[in-house]
């Protein structure tokens, strides 16, 4: 029977509590159902009852990019259930070159009057490959397509996050 519970310091000198999925050694696997040592670059949480968010990936896309999209490893539990991630989207007017804002904000200089700058997302849980093309084989990826109201002048920044899925 595999060791599935770790309390204390792990092999990376991080302290916390880890529980591996059935059949996996908590010391060596990245397939964890609960992990309190999550950092920005953690991965491998795919199922079960831990309740914490993992940043799958993060990035920025400049206004110069015509097709604004990002792909992410599909979130699926051992029953084959897919879910979409939580995505935090921020935008800014590229000419302002300032801070990003979540949600829609009002900016001057676009049209005669102040206008709202923002974007929306189409999120697909699976069905794509790692580069955003249609999936044919191997690991399935999801994809988020960003649509800006004013695409040529809007920079975006995003965080793609997931919570562990519950095994039934």
């Amino acid at each position: 029977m595999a060791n599935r519970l770790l309390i204390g310091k792990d092999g990376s000198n991080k302290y916390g509590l880890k529980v591996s999925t059935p059949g996996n050694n908590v010391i060596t696997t990245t397939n964890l159902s609960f992990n309190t040592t999550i950092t920005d670059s953690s991965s491998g949480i795919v199922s079960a009852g831990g309740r914490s968010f993992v940043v799958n990936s993060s990035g920025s896309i400049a206004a110069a990019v015509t097709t604004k999209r990002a792909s992410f490893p599909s979130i699926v539990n051992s029953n084959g259930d897919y879910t979409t991630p939580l995505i935090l989207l921020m935008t800014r007017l590229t000419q302002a070159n300032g801070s990003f804002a979540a949600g829609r904000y009002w900016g001057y200089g676009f049209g005669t009057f102040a206008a709202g700058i923002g974007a929306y997302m189409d999120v697909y849980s699976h069905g794509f490959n790692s580069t955003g093309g249609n999936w044919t084989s191997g690991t399935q990826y999801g994809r988020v397509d960003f649509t800006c109201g004013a695409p040529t002048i809007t920079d975006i920044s995003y965080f793609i996050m997931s919570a562990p899925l519950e095994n039934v």
Partner: protein
Amino acid sequence: MIVMYKNDTKRVVQSNMVDKTLEWTTEECQEWTQANPGLTAVVVEDNPKAITMWYDETDQSLKPCSTFDFTVRIGDIEYIKPEEDMLIIQDDGVSSVVFSGIEEGSSVYVDQVLVGIMDSSQTFTFTSTEVGTYFITFDKFAYIDDGRIVEVVSGI
């Protein structure tokens, strides 16, 4: 992390920070590049400021971009923070927005259409007889592209 840069100016226009195990292979980078003309995808060391950098193909590293530093003038008024102000001119073909201090060799675009390469005068003057909203942008090797929106109106 994965970055995508413009083939002409080498400026990074998209960055995606992922776990090391999920970084793309050479084949995946090539696949994305083929599907996105004008851009190239590569894997580089993590850098949270990648979107403000350019990719040096000779040593395969990210380096800080330069930024444009120009002034904007309409008539006698010089705009201190033109990015925060509406730049409005009359549609008489005489009223103009004058951009000064644009680096020589910069590409100048109006509504994403290349209208010329900046000469030694480093000055671009925009006029119009057509009412509308125009986006003036400047781009150059290893620079972050920059620009301003100009509103042309009738009957000021």
